[in-house]
C-alpha cells in the first residue's frame, strides 16, 4: 500500500489562508488503511480547520467527501461537476490522487494535505515500513525475498557494506541491515552459494531514472 503522513496542521492552514470555502477530499484505499486520509481523517481535519478559523474570526466553510479511489477517473470525473463555488480542493489522498484531481478539475486550486511517503506494509498495528521502490525489474528471486534496492540505505546489490553491525544498518535508528537479512535468508534456504556471484550493475532505466513511467495494455483499451 501507499503510506502517507498528514502534513503539519499549520502548513495546511497556510495553504488555505485566503480561502472561504473549500472541499476536503479523502480516499477509501491505502490512506484509509494507514489512517492518514480516509473518511475518519477527513471529518477530523475538517472540524479542526473550522474551529481554528472560527477562533481567528475568519470562518471557512469546509465540505467533506471521501472517494472510493482518488487515483481513478471513474470516481474523480463525477467530482469535477460538483466544484462550483469552491476556492480550493484540499486532498488528503496520496500524491497520485491529488494530481488526478488537479488534472480533472482544471481552473481550481488543488492542495495536498498529506506527505506521501512510501510503498510498504503494515509491520504492526500503527507501524508501517517501506518495502518496494517500484524499480521495474524485480530481483527478489535472487535476494531471499528481501529488497536491496529499497531496504539497503545504499541500494547495494553486492552487500553488505562495511557499516553493517549487529544486524543493524549503519544508519542505525533501528533500521535492520537488508544484507544481514538477505544472508540470513539465503543461509536458511541453503542458497548461500549464490552469494559468490557478482550481481551486475542494474539497468535503472526501468526505474524512475528512465523518466516518468507509463503502462499500456492495448487489449484493455476501449
Amino acid at each position, binding site marked *: 500500500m501507499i503510506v502517507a503522513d498528514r502534513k503539519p496542521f499549520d502548513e495546511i492552514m497556510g495553504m488555505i489562508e485566503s480561502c472561504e470555502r473549500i472541499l476536503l477530499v479523502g480516499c477509501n484505499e491505502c490512506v484509509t488503511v494507514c489512517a492518514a486520509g480516509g473518511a475518519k481523517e477527513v471529518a477530523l481535519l475538517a472540524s479542526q480547520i473550522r474551529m481554528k478559523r472560527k477562533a481567528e474570526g475568519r470562518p471557512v466553510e469546509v465540505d467533506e467527501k471521501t472517494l472510493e479511489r482518488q487515483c481513478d477517473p471513474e470516481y474523480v470525473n463525477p467530482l469535477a461537476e460538483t466544484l462550483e463555488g469552491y476556492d480550493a480542493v484540499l486532498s488528503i489522498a496520496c500524491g497520485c490522487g491529488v494530481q488526478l484531481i488537479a488534472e480533472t478539475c482544471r481552473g481550481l486550486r488543488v492542495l495536498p494535505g498529506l506527505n506521501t511517503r512510501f510503498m510498504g506494509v503494515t509491520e504492526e498495528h500503527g507501524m508501517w515500513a517501506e518495502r518496494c521502490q517500484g524499480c521495474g525489474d524485480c530481483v527478489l528471486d535472487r535476494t531471499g525475498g528481501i529488497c536491496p534496492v529499497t531496504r539497503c540505505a545504499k541500494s547495494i546489490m553486492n552487500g553488505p557494506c*562495511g557499516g553493517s553491525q549487529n544486524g543493524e544498518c*549503519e544508519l542505525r535508528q533501528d533500521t535492520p541491515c537488508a544484507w544481514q537479512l538477505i544472508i540470513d535468508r539465503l543461509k536458511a534456504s541453503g542458497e548461500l552459494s549464490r552469494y559468490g556471484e557478482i550481481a551486475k550493475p542494474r539497468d535503472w532505466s526501468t526505474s524512475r531514472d528512465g523518466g516518468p513511467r507509463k503502462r499500456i495494455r492495448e487489449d484493455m483499451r476501449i
Partner: protein
Amino acid sequence: MTAPGNLERVLTSGGFAVTAECGPPRGADPELIRKKGGYLKGFVDAVNVTDNQTAVVRMSSMASCLILKEMGFDPVLQMTVRDRSRIALQSDILGAAALGIRNILCLSGDHQSFGDHPGAKNVYDIDSIQFIDMARAMRDEGRLSSGAEITVRPEIFIGCVENPFADPFDIRALRLAKKIGAGARFVQTQCVFNVEKFTRWMEMVRDLGLHEKAHILAGITPMKSPGMARYMKNSVPGMDVPDHLVERMASVPKEGHREEGVAICLETIERVRAIEGVAGIHIMAIEWEEIVPDIVRRAGLETRP
C-alpha cells in the same frame, strides 16, 4: 604500458608497504595539502586522499592527488560510489589516468546522513564491487560499462577496502573474494584495534587464498585521547575498539594520551606484521598526519624500498 607506480612496485616486489591517509581541507587552500604531504615525504610508499569522507564536503580527492603527485608522491585516489553515477565515475577514471594518478581505491562511501549535507540526494548507481569490475574492464578490456570502446586505456592499479569488523563476520572474507574476483589487487582494511578478530579474519582470507591474489594492508589509526577511542567505539559505523583499549587510554594522565595512542598503534603494527598474508600497513592518522613519521620510524619501517 608505462612502468608501474610506486605502490604497485613495492607490493609486487614483496616489500612491506606503508601507506598513509591525507584528509583534504574544507577549503581551497593547496598549501594545506602540501603541508600534510611535507610530513609524509620519505616515510610512505603512497598517500591516499579521502573522498568527502563521512560525507563531509572537502577539497576533491582528484585535485588533492594531483598536488601530492607534483610533490613526488604516488597518490591513491579514493572514489566512492555515493556521489557519482557510472558516467561520472568512468569519466573521472579516465581523467585520473590522464593526470598520471595510477591508484584507484573503490568504496561505497559513508551514507550522506552522517555528513554536513544530510539533505543531499545520494547516487549509488553501482556498488563498490561493480565499480571495481567496471574499472578493471576499462583497463583490461578497453571498454566502458556500456560496451563502448575506449581509445586509450587507463593504466590503473585497482584497490578496495574491507572491514573485517563488520557483520555478518562469516561472510567478510567471502565478500573480499568478490572484490578480488572483480579485479581489486590491493586491499586497505578498516582500522585494526581488535587484533584477535583481525587475526581470525586473516585466517579466513588465507583459507580462500586471497592473500596470494591481492596485497592486504592493515589499517592503523593512532588514538589521540580516550574521548576519541570512545567516539570511534560508539559512533563510527563498523568500528571495533575493544573496551580494554578504551580503558588503557583513559588510565594514563592527559599529557600521556597521545604517547599511549602511539604505543598501542606500534604494538598493533608489530602484531599485524607477524600475520601471514599481511603485505603492509595503511596509517590513517585522522587530522594528525604529523605523527606518521614518528610511527614509521619507531616501527622500524623508515627505510622505504
